[in-house]
């Protein structure tokens, strides 16, 4: 079997660097212009983010069509600081820059009722630069640099409002980010040292992928990326941060930034695939294939995929269940994001699990990432528009908005339907792919993965249910809040931004074949370990087939049942006990740690308070004694120490001593003389 993967042609190009610099410059420009000239500032923000998008589009032909890898090497940090664009990075960059552009356009109007608008725009653009950096990085080192920056810069977006909730969310977010960064750093350090590689792939001939250290490395990396990706149990920052941030920022967080985590997962899988190219890997591969066995690195990938699948399932279910019971729209969407990340992880996990046959899993995962970027950011923008109009985020206090805000309602519904996975909308395509991949994995996976299939079904139903809840409570029915008359449709730029995203949703849903051929398949072509035939098969995959559409019915049914049941018994208001949430334990740990520190220092001072007097008393005693000695000395105006040690020599001292014992004086005299004489004689006459 010949390796059909096109070896990427490396082309030096400044485009990646420009794509990165544009938002950066834009951010600076925004800072310079500042609050004084709002119009110019908004214009600059939009222009620069548009320019970044254009720049990404400009890379499209070279990367996707000609399959070359655009590379620019900067002489910063430790030298070889290389940005390099391959199809995988590019589709992420495209999605990111597009969503960013829309969000920026949207924010120009939306932010009018918020404080510190310049800061928002500037840091939004900075964050865009960092995010693009993550996607355009050529190796883990560069990726880490931008990943960290992105995480820290996003903090500014989350705490933007500086309300109590925002600060609380910010604290949790920042500690999780720091933790994630450190875990990632740890993994990357180990990777660089053991794989001896500067790129994402292990160095040819290194035993890294076949050794067990690769599990440690990928464990750390998953720990790091998982934080960003909102993977359970590292998701705790997400439900706090998304509602706290301004809506356009939430759209970015949910649409793009958490995808950076997923991107990391894909890169980890890519690293394993690189074993197929390496000399050692290839040898192993060929050697084993002759015997009809799976190569060793694939074996490791297989195990890793197994873990990712279950993490994904956990994420999916937890997110779904918690999303069901939310009243705050944005929090609901945040949990929904967690749940959707679970879908993505399942896809990626299956892609890894199936090894060479995993193309369909990866494709599903990547497709879903794209889709989620569109519909989730659109959803956030939509509820942002609602908030803009009503200043209300509690969906139980909304309703009947479709009359007042028809466009917003339409766009949000498109996004919601996409999220549900209804035919024609984009979620349908990706969920179909995911479902296919689960079915494919049944064969090697056995009964456990059959359970996955069922869980997938149920949670798809749950998804339909909570979206239905969201849409129906927010937009339909009758208005439960006040001042329905004051509610107006949002300004046109905001609508335009939403409209573009909605168009994206429809496009991805209507033309899955085009998307697959032009976006997903080139990406899959990167993975050297994939079976080219299965990739080819994907390119020709038909989505709108009978079985696929029929397969939509069970989840839909489950969703409707869910919705009816929950409405009937009012289960939407169900609140789980706090101790069941993972967050509870995080808080416990956090509080416990700080308490440990403070209690430790308190204990220390207690101990000191307890034993210090003793030491002090001893010290004071010694000091008093010393002082007494000094005083005594001074009073007698001659050395106390002298007196003790040199009585016989201190003339007057000895005299006084003898006078005090006058009657013994004579005896002393005799003894003194005789003793000394005997001593002298002995010495003399020896």
């Amino acid at each position: 079997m010949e390796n059909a993967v096109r070896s990427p042609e490396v082309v030096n190009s400044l485009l990646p660097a420009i794509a990165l610099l544009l938002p950066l410059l834009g951010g600076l420009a925004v800072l310079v212009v500042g609050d004084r000239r709002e119009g110019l500032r908004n214009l600059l923000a939009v222009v620069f983010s548009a320019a970044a998008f254009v720049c990404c589009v400009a890379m499209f032909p070279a990367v996707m069509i000609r399959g070359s890898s655009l590379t620019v090497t900067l002489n910063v940090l430790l030298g070889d600081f290389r940005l390099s664009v391959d199809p995988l990075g590019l589709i992420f960059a495209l999605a990111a820059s597009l969503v960013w552009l829309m969000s920026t356009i949207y924010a120009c109007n939306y932010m009018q009722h918020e404080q510190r608008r310049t800061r928002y725009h500037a840091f939004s653009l900075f964050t865009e630069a960092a995010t693009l950096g993550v996607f355009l990085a050529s190796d883990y080192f560069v990726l880490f640099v931008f990943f960290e920056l992105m995480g820290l810069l996003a903090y500014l977006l989350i705490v933007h409002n500086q309300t109590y909730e925002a600060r609380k969310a910010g604290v949790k977010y920042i500690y999780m980010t720091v933790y994630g960064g450190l875990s990632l750093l740890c993994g990357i350090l180990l990777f660089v040292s053991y794989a001896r590689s500067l790129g994402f792939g292990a160095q040819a001939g290194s035993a890294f992928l076949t050794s067990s250290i690769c599990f440690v490395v990928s464990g750390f990396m998953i720990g790091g990326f998982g934080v960003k990706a909102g993977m359970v149990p590292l998701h705790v920052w997400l439900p706090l941060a998304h509602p706290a941030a301004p809506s356009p920022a939430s759209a970015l967080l949910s649409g793009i930034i958490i995808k950076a985590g997923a991107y990391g997962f894909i890169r980890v899988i890519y690293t394993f695939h690189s074993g197929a190219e390496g000399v050692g890997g290839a040898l192993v591969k060929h050697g084993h294939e002759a015997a009809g066995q799976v190569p060793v690195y694939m074996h490791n990938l297989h195990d890793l995929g197994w873990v990712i699948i279950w993490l994904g399932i956990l994420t999916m279910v937890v997110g779904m269940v918690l999303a069901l019971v939310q009243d705050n729209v944005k929090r609901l969407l945040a949990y929904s994001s967690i749940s959707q990340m679970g879908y993505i992880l399942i896809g990626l996990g299956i892609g890894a699990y199936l090894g060479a046959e995993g193309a369909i899993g990866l494709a599903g995962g990547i497709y879903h990432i794209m889709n989620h970027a569109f519909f989730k950011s659109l959803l956030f923008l939509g509820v942002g528009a609602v908030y803009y109009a009503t200043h209300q985020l509690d969906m139980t206090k909304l309703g009947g908005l479709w009359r007042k805000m028809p466009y917003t309602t339409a766009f949000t519904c498109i996004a919601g339907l996409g999220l549900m996975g209804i035919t024609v909308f984009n979620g349908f395509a990706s969920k179909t792919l995911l479902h296919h991949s689960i079915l494919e994995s049944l064969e090697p996976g056995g009964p456990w993965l059959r359970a996955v299939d069922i869980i997938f079904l149920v949670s798809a139903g749950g998804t339909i249910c909570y979206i239905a809840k969201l849409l129906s409570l927010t937009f339909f029915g009758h208005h439960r809040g006040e001042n329905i008359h004051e509610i107006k449709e949002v300004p046109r730029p905001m609508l335009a931004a939403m409209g573009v995203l909605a168009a994206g949703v429809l496009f991805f849903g209507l033309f899955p074949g085009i998307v697959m051929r032009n976006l997903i398949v080139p990406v899959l072509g990167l993975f050297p370990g994939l079976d080219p035939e299965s990739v080819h098969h994907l390119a020709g995959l038909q989505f709108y087939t009978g079985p696929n559409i029929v397969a939509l019915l069970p989840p839909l049914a489950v969703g409707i049942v869910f919705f009816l049941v929950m409405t009937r018994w009012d289960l939407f208001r169900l609140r789980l006990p706090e101790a069941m949430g993972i967050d509870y334990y995080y808080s416990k740990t956090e509080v416990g740690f700080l308490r440990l520190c403070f209690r430790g220092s308190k204990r220390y001072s207690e101990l000191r308070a307890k034993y210090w007097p003793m030491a002090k008393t001893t010290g004071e005693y010694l000091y008093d004694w010393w002082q007494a000695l000094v005083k005594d000395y001074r009073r007698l105006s001659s050395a106390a120490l002298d007196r003790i040690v040199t009585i016989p020599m201190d003339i007057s001292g000895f005299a006084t001593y003898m006078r005090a014992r006058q009657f013994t004086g004579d005896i002393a005299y005799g003894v003194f003389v005789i003793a000394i004489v005997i001593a002298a004689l002995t010495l003399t006459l020896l």
Partner: protein
Amino acid sequence: MSKIVHSVLPAIIMAVPWLAIPGAVLWGKKRPGAAKAVYVGCTAATFLLITTMYPRAMDGVVSVQHLVEVAPGINLAFRVDTLGFYFAILLSVIWLLTTVYSLGYIRTRETRYYCFTAINLSFCLGVAFSANMFTLFVFYELMSLFTYPLIIHEETEIARRAGLKYLVYTITAGAVILAALIMQYYYGGTLSFLGHGTLNSETISKPVLLIIFSVYMLGFGVKACIMPLHGWVPDAHPAAPSPTSALLSGVILKVGAFGIIRVLFDVFGIKLLGDLGVALPMLWVASFTIIVASLFAITQNDLKRRLAYSSVAQVSYIILGLFLLSPDGAIGGLLQIAHHAFMKGTLFLCAGIIIHETGKRDIREMNGIGSKLPITMLAFSVAALGMMGTPLTCGFITKWELGLGSIQAHRPYFIAVLLLSALLNAVYFLPIIYIAFFKGDPMDKLLKHETSRTMMVPVIIGAAFVVILGIFVTVPGLPYSLVKIVVKALF
């Protein structure tokens, strides 16, 4: 072997700071402007003169200058190798920054402050330029003593106590180093730095070597504040005026570390230390220091005390990196000298501005201080992020190299120490930033009120360095290139 040239330049450079003294003494009262000009001029001239040695340092050329033979076989002599140059240029830059800063900060007893700061610069350079352990010790001791007036500058009761503690610690340490020095000379026969270890295990028995080593560590460990010996640091830093704190943390603690470096590379040599098996205990001690000092830092509410504990932890990074005995570890450890100097220097200078402008030392009272002192707090944040090891700041580079080093040394578990420490750094630095910028009632907006330009500029430059050293790492002339040369020669 490296090329050797004779040069009187080190001696001249060392003499330059002394020129500031007549100016400060004569004009201190009558023409303070002139005194300040002379003072800054001398520091700047020192810096410029040191930069002239740059080509040699980059070529690995060693400049030597024999000064005087104090006793037969014991010389005061200068030898500027790349390591010495690296240290010298670093400390002259830090000195220049704090010098400019102090013009605005120091308002009392300026003459004394200027004189002793200048003298200390000279002595620190002496340490950097020393050609043998004896010269190093001589200048080290002088530097230690002449730091005292700087610490007690404010002459408060607290400062006095801190100064006393400092004296007791350093003088004891000096005596201990002296003992080690004598032992080294007696057993090893030479004190010179030759670029490799001069003690060897063939002629000297292992216990003796161990004793010499541990006595050296005890001695230098006080300045480098290895954990049980760190007692003076948290007292001296808050008591001293802020530019002095910056110098203490930025340079003077590093002089202790520099001593350890010399002991490591030029007295024992890497191979011998590896054979002796002392690296691992030192690594544990350093790790202990890093973690425990960070934990202590968390509980401090006085800003400068927190920074001081942070310094205790950070200086041990140097020790950690060096005793990994691997090239990357050494690069990390040596880089940390410069990087921490800039970061902590900036932090202390910012703390100085905060204290100077608001009079607040307690972190809990600093709500919304970021809107009052935006530039200061921005610089503070940059430096603090650097301490946490955020990419694009110099702290990240250090951490990266140290991490690689620990794997290279087959001791990957020390990464955990590094990362835990970074986490703890976040725990004690982030609240400050958070309190300064995001806490506090936005309604009660304080008026923007930045401090004078002489104090602002060094802070900005320091923060800029934190970022520049984090981005343009490999530019020739910046620490990384120098350290690379040093390490290449060693391993």
